[in-house]
């Protein structure tokens, strides 16, 4: 039982149902608006969500984190920089899954700028393109994606200037 309450899925679902019930109890008409919005949106995105999850699942098994680290780890030249500003766009996941991978990259000697570029480029979220275009349209999505590359580039340059001084104790320095 304790485990159930700590479960994220359970928490989100019970919170959702709780809010809907509360609104319904206070004002039935408003409650129906909430339920209707959830219902319509849910079935509107169901096929896209499933498709996107398949894309990300396949990417995860076919492109292993080790492969990514190998691909980007030594990339300090201009080629590596371009790669680090674009390739992470293809990855799924959330910041929670991203940071451990970046720690590995850092231990392999990646520069701070490269790490920052990596995170920013990862924000491109190409696997979610079906969702983005559905809700915000192709012009928005394509413009945002191209700006993400620029964004990643700027972040890399800026963060390299910040460097890594005091708290880099846990990193193997050359």
């Amino acid at each position: 039982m304790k485990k159930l309450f700590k479960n994220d899925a359970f928490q989100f679902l019970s919170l959702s149902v709780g809010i809907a019930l509360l609104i319904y109890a206070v004002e039935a008409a408003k409650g129906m608006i909430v339920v209707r919005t959830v219902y319509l949106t849910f079935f509107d995105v169901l096929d896209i969500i499933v498709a996107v999850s398949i894309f990300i699942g396949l990417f995860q098994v076919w492109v292993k984190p080790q492969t990514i680290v190998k691909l980007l780890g030594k990339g300090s030249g201009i080629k590596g920089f371009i790669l680090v500003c674009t390739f992470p766009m293809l990855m799924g996941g959330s910041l929670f899954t991203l940071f451990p991978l970046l720690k590995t990259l850092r231990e392999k000697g990646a520069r701070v700028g490269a790490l920052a570029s990596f995170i920013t480029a990862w924000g491109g979220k190409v696997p979610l393109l079906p969702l983005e275009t559905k809700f915000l349209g192709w012009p928005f999505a394509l413009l945002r994606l191209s700006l993400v590359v620029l964004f990643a580039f700027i972040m890399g340059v800026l963060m390299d200037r910040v460097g890594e001084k005091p708290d880099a104790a846990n990193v193997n320095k050359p």
Partner: protein
Amino acid sequence: MRAGQIYLIVALGLMAISYIKEKQRTRDALKATFKILYTIMPVLIFVFVLMGLIQAYVSRETIAAILGKQTGVMGILYAELVGSIALFLPPAVFPFGGYLHDNGAAYGPIAGFVFTAILIGVTTLPLEFKLLGKRFTIARNIFTFIIAFFLALFMGVVLG
């Protein structure tokens, strides 16, 4: 045909190709897919409830007044703040952004929201501190917020 159905067919096609090439890996992929669905579905439903709440209690005029075109710079800053604080998984960001747009928010603030909701997380800060260091974390989040602002401003101008 709906776009979603086409994506689904492509996804299943890729799954089939993957299965022909390597069965075990495809089983792992399927497991990963279910794990992703299990993680994002409850969050999505929660965000849909939030959308429903806004639908029920917040008028179009209010949304337009906070995030509409004429709010300019302030609208983008508000949206970025919300994006930074909100505990949104990336897949929930776009439905919510699209919903706000349909209800009077301009593209600029939405872009600001999308950038920060994906890249800045108050909830992920402790982990980032721990794994990547304080200096890195603080600098990265501040720079991200500032650059996202200018890019969002630009997107607002271009997309109208």
